[in-house]
């Protein structure tokens, strides 16, 4: 039986169906999880997809982190379950403290919606495990608050422990150290600003998101087998 991946839907989320479709292309069974759910029973991985959870009021992710489902996501992550935040989902994970740092408005207050090239700089995560280090992937970005910031000590720790999993080849938003994606200490929680689900079919210009999603689905299958 294929891995079951829950895709969380907050009011204002808008990438959930694309994400489910892409996860299914990567070999999983995708299922939508409404943000008031308090349990994640039967799921092998959880994805927080892109969009504008709770209207992005206050700050992106600031209200969503208090949605009931987030307590369950925290428990799931603490138990080693694979958790992926894409774009707005990444913002939610940093607001919730599941990933370090924060995402602030892009350099020059510029909204970016463009193809991007990211490089796999660490394979120590559920999103990049088994993907060749140094591989460059064409995956689009679409965000206003995607500039990653953290204090110097956190940055040094992220670098030294292989937790910067993806870097932009050309920095589109002013992120410190060209960071496009980071992982938790254990590598089971990952956030990235680019949208791998929008690069999951050659028809839309790239299927370079699939190796990442397959890695996630593989990690989820490992959870199922365990």
């Amino acid at each position, binding site marked *: 039986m294929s891995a079951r991946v829950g895709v969380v839907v907050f009011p204002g989320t808008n990438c959930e169906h694309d994400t489910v479709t892409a996860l299914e292309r990567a070999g999983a069974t995708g299922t939508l999880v409404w943000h008031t759910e308090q349990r994640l029973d039967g799921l092998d991985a959880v994805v927080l997809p892109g969009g504008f959870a709770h209207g992005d009021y*206050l*700050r992106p992710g*600031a209200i969503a982190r*208090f949605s009931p489902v987030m307590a369950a996501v925290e428990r799931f992550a603490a138990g080693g379950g694979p958790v992926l935040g894409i774009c707005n989902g990444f913002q939610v994970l*940093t*607001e919730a403290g599941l990933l*370090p*740092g*924060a995402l*602030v*408005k*892009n*350099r*020059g*207050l510029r909204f970016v919606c463009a193809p991007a090239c990211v490089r796999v700089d660490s394979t120590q995560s559920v999103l990049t495990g088994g993907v060749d280090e140094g591989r460059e992937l064409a995956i689009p970005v679409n965000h206003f608050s995607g*500039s990653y*910031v*953290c*204090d110097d000590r956190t940055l040094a720790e992220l670098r030294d422990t292989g937790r910067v999993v993806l870097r932009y080849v050309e920095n589109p938003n*002013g992120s410190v150290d060209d960071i496009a994606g980071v992982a938790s200490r254990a590598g089971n929680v990952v956030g990235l600003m680019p949208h791998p689900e929008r690069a999951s079919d050659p028809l839309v210009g790239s299927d370079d998101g699939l190796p990442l999603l397959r890695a996630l689905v593989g990690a989820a299958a490992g959870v199922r087998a365990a």
Partner: protein
Amino acid sequence: MKFAVRVEVRLRQGIADPEGATIERALPALGFDDVRGVTAGRSFRFELDADDEAAARGRAGELARRLLANPVIEDADVELRPLARTGERR
């Protein structure tokens, strides 16, 4: 007691403030070429019930830290004053 609270949230030193920088760059065109150091932030106002001022300050500070500001990137200042009676204008 009821307190009127104002929380001001602003980006911490060292965090780029493109909004403040953009406003500052626009000012000379309006003749304000004597203005420097513009920063942009937000302010929140609300009423709070508490036993005394220390308790109100504690609650408002907790709210500021947990929700209104993201301590990774922002600082928050809390100002408050007692309201004489319910319904007084803030």
